[in-house]
């Protein structure tokens, strides 16, 4: 655990207040790596909350991580709706055949009770267990899929775009169901001991929809949903672009944003200054190829551009580091933050 005078929680809170803490906070968003720690398959690992508790504690300690992530996988919410999940040996499970096969089914869609849902109990138990262990020393980040992004897994991307643009009646109904589900899922995680909720909303990024559409859809839904979540939130776009909607995102009530490697982190910091804490933006997919020199170079470069002034958390750009990324690379990231991440930042160009 952290031996420094200040705890991860204090460090993160100070940075969220747009001030400089002792050093740059680091969120290594590790989920599947817990299975490696415990010598289990990914599927076995996620079958019990005890595994996730143990895995997260070990990972936190190993890398001096400034957060704990009791996140299982996105399609768990699909399981809660009765949908299927397809497992892989070397990556996150994916949602299977969409359970909304014809768009008219939306009219009869039943919302599972997120609080009592059997599959979601795993998340609540893991969160409770982790909270018992770390108390309020390390922030515990609960995760929800946004009501606006979940439909891709519920009905497939093509059908979803069709209702978003051409069937406002069905779109509205689906958003109502998903919103209720999301708010309950988030609030139950907060009750279980999550410090904050990460609201995953990649469909809102301008990679997927134009700003005009966002303002009429994802933006309003985020505003309404976040206002009903009884704790702080960060919004993640899973490496989708957001530069053109930064000011809008700030108006949804969220405190921080996950940013993409496709956008310049220095410019992003300027755009978010005083409004949103920037989380990012290491390229998780490319990270598999990084050697020590490249890792140190990238981490230093991001810190130099985005850390001064606080309001910045070093992390990957998707909110989940691929299973293929090695322990050595993760360790190098952590060491580089410990070495070069102390405030005031003293890194020069090049």
């Amino acid at each position, binding site marked *: 655990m952290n031996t420094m005078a200040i705890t991860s929680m204090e460090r993160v809170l100070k940075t969220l207040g747009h001030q400089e803490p002792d050093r740059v906070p680091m969120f290594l968003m590790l989920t599947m790596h817990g299975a490696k720690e415990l010598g289990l398959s990914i599927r076995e690992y996620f079958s019990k909350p005890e595994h996730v508790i143990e895995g997260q504690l070990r990972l936190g300690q190993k890398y001096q991580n400034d957060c704990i992530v009791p996140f299982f996988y996105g399609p768990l919410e699909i399981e809660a709706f009765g949908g299927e999940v397809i497992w*892989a040996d070397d*990556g996150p499970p994916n949602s299977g055949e969409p359970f909304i096969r014809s768009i008219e089914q939306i009219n009869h869609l039943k919302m599972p009770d997120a609080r009592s849902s059997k599959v979601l109990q795993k998340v609540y138990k893991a969160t409770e267990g982790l909270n018992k262990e770390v108390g309020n020393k390390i922030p515990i980040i609960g995760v929800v899929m946004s009501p606006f992004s979940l439909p891709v897994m519920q009905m497939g*991307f093509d059908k979803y775009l069709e209702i978003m643009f051409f069937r406002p009646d069905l779109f509205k109904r689906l958003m109502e169901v998903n919103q209720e589900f999301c708010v309950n899922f988030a609030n139950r995680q907060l009750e279980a001991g999550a410090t904050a909720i990460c609201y995953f909303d990649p469909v809102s990024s301008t990679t*997927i929809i134009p700003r005009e*559409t966002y303002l009429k859809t994802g933006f309003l839904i985020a505003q309404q949903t976040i206002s009903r979540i009884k704790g702080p939130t960060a919004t993640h776009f899973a490496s989708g672009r957001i*530069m053109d909607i930064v000011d809008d995102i700030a108006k949804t009530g969220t405190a921080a944003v996950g940013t993409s490697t496709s*956008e310049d982190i220095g410019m992003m910091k300027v755009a978010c200054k005083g409004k949103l804490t920037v989380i990012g933006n290491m390229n998780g997919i*490319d990270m*598999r190829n990084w050697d020590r020199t490249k890792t140190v170079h990238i981490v230093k470069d991001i810190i130099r551009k985005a850390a001064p002034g606080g309001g910045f958390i070093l992390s990957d750009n998707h909110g989940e580091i691929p299973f*293929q990324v090695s322990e050595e690379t993760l360790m190098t990231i952590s060491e580089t933050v410990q070495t070069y991440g102390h405030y005031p930042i003293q890194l020069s160009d090049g």
Partner: protein
Amino acid sequence: MHDIQALVQDLERALLSLNRNEAIKIIHQASTQSSPIEAACEVVTEALDHIGAGWEEGRYSLSQVYISGLICEEAVDAVLPREAPERKDQPKMAIGVFADYHLLGKRIIYSSLRAAGFELTDLGSGLNTEDVVKMVHKQQISVLLLSTLMLPSALKIKELTRQLKDMPVKVVVGGAPFRFDENLWKEVGAYATGKTPKEALEIVNNLTGGKV
């Protein structure tokens, strides 16, 4: 006679505002030119190219790329039915989603290539190495387009290209992992990769020597 460039601009505008009827009208207008198919395909391809390039540069979004492709595919199908002899005389081409179940990337590339006048077989999704090797052999596929969304799925293409090594087939890959790791296509032994429908079309044009 309409000026082709003016039609391209009108079509692009209609597509970006998701004005389906207007877009179809413009494509029909283009097809009343001296060589209907060439004119329609040229206008469509250019408009879709601009939109796809705009996505890559971060100006347009994927929903615009997708819906534009669908509208154009429908309109081109009307002037150039599936069995039309004018469909490009081309080597056998197929597209599928490898190891994944996410259909949108494939759908976009499929629509755009068809809108440009190519014909290709849809192999579906969740494909594994064994299935694909059999399909390539049986259907004598010589251009195989594969889309993936998950990194592990992309990495599995390496074994597929190894098994296809001695067959006369060119494997073209695409999807998010290839956009975030520039060298991944080489690592998995693919012939080429593309980030947008425009790039997919360029690769296919080069491979088939096919200009309308």
